[in-house]
């Protein structure tokens, strides 16, 4: 049972990535690989700041800004230097590996005996419940903020940028600027997940981001499948299902591991699982949208 609680909490933390990928992939139609690097960047900044005694709120802010900066660099390379979005992401992700290693100073920093965001509020004596509450508050705030943003005129222009670029250009929107801002928001969210997971697992590791974009993508695809089944068009519900997708994703992985599968095969399983999710619609099992 503990196994599933861990998965649930991890899923909640990683739902920030799912929201980030929802922005880059679904709203802007850009496959953004920067994610792998900006997730680690968020965790690395968190570990270094907390071990240096920075307050949690400042650490949070710095992590998000770090991720947003990485995303805006990808956006800049893609829009202004006209580099393919996938390649722009790979370039920044690769560069971030060195950046992360330099900030971290070594390949791993543990957070021993350091007060973290899960200890800020402690209404009960049960650590898991306290952590869930802290995470739920965090994710609920991100969900509300993002949903509201996407309802504003600016948010509508963001959504139109990915959906019909020729139209929104003719309607007076600088789509380059929009994409840079969008990728900054997306990677800011991804770094938030790095911030949360780093404190949840109690360490930052240079290789923790490998393949995390796939986790985000899988979560978004699960959310999208639910959205299509239920014909959801409301942005609040769409995002809620994406968050649910992140949790379902972790629960499925936890279930596979509980069957006694070698943890070394975890990335292989993750990739296969995402392959199944993305290919199901192509095979025609999903309701036509």
């Amino acid at each position, binding site marked *: 049972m503990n196994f599933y609680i861990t998965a649930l909490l991890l899923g909640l933390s990683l739902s920030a990535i799912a929201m980030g990928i929802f922005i880059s992939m679904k709203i802007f139609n850009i496959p953004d690989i920067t994610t792998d690097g900006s997730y680690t960047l968020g965790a690395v900044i968190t570990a270094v700041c907390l071990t240096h005694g920075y307050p949690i709120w400042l650490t949070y802010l710095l992590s998000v800004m770090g991720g947003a900066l990485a995303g805006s660099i990808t956006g800049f390379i893609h829009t202004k230097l006209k580099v393919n979005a996938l390649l722009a992401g790979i370039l920044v992700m690769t560069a971030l590996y060195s950046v992360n290693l330099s900030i971290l100073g070594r390949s791993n920093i543990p957070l021993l005996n350091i007060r973290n965001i899960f200890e800020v509020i402690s209404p009960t004596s049960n650590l898991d419940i306290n952590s869930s509450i802290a995470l739920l508050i965090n994710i609920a705030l991100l969900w509300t903020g993002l949903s509201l943003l996407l309802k504003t005129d600016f948010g509508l222009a963001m959504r139109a940028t990915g959906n019909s670029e*020729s139209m*929104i250009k003719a309607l007076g929107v600088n789509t380059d600027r929009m994409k840079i801002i969008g990728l900054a928001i997306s990677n800011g969210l991804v770094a938030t997940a790095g911030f949360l997971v780093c404190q949840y697992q109690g360490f930052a590791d240079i290789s923790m981001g490998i393949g995390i974009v796939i986790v985000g993508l899988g979560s978004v695809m699960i959310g999208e499948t639910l959205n299509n089944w239920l014909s959801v068009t409301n942005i609040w519900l769409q995002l809620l299902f994406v968050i649910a997708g992140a949790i379902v994703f972790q629960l499925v992985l936890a279930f596979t591991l509980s069957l006694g599968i070698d943890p070394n095969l975890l990335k292989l399983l993750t990739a296969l699982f995402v392959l199944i999710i993305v290919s199901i619609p192509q095979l025609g099992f999903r309701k036509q949208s």
Partner: protein
Amino acid sequence: MIKLNNVSKSFNKGKANEVNALRSTTIEIKHGDNVVVVGANGSGKSTFLNLIAGNLNPTHGTILLQDVDVTQLAEYNRSKWIARVFQNPLSGTAPDLSILTNFRLAALRTKPKNLTIGTDKAFKELVQQKLSTLKMGLENKLDQPMGSLSGGQRQALTLLMSVMDDAKILLLDEPTAALDPRSANFVMQTADKIIQDYNLTAVLVTHNLKDAYTYGNRILQFSEGVILRDISSEEKKQLELTDLFAWFE
């Protein structure tokens, strides 16, 4: 209203496959002009339209809109004068967004898109009222995604969207090319009505000579990058449809 001074546009300049799409063209389109542009494929008429719209920049020359030099302005900066209807019905609207959302963005064409929620009750009523003028029965389907409508419906809505915000110039790039004859007719009539009602200056590029004959008060014929004929309002009245066909023989 629209002035082109000695405007040229070349593609692949200096290379073996250099194309001079438009050669030193000078023309003035006055307020209230309703210009129909005809010409064979590759004659430069689409280049002409795209240069005015701003998604192409001229190799030489200057472009003025209402006496403002816009030669260096990007397309999104010219939207305060220009509304556009594209050949592809998909290009003028966002298919996954609702009708209401599309209209909201159109209503902000000349304005900044701020962090406020603008799709309120008053705005919905305004869109319903505007939609009812088209008599397409879409007044109560504001939340339907744009992509669920037919090409003709989407072109008609794009036209209506163009006057949701203050517009002076309407550019239409073969708006009916992808439509069946009945829808095409409906879209052309809607366009004509909107141009008259809102007193717009319009530039319509078309391959349909019957439309060129029926609509507009001025005809430009392009050929190999130059304006071959410029038929004014008075001359156009004398023109027969057969004359137009004769130009292309």
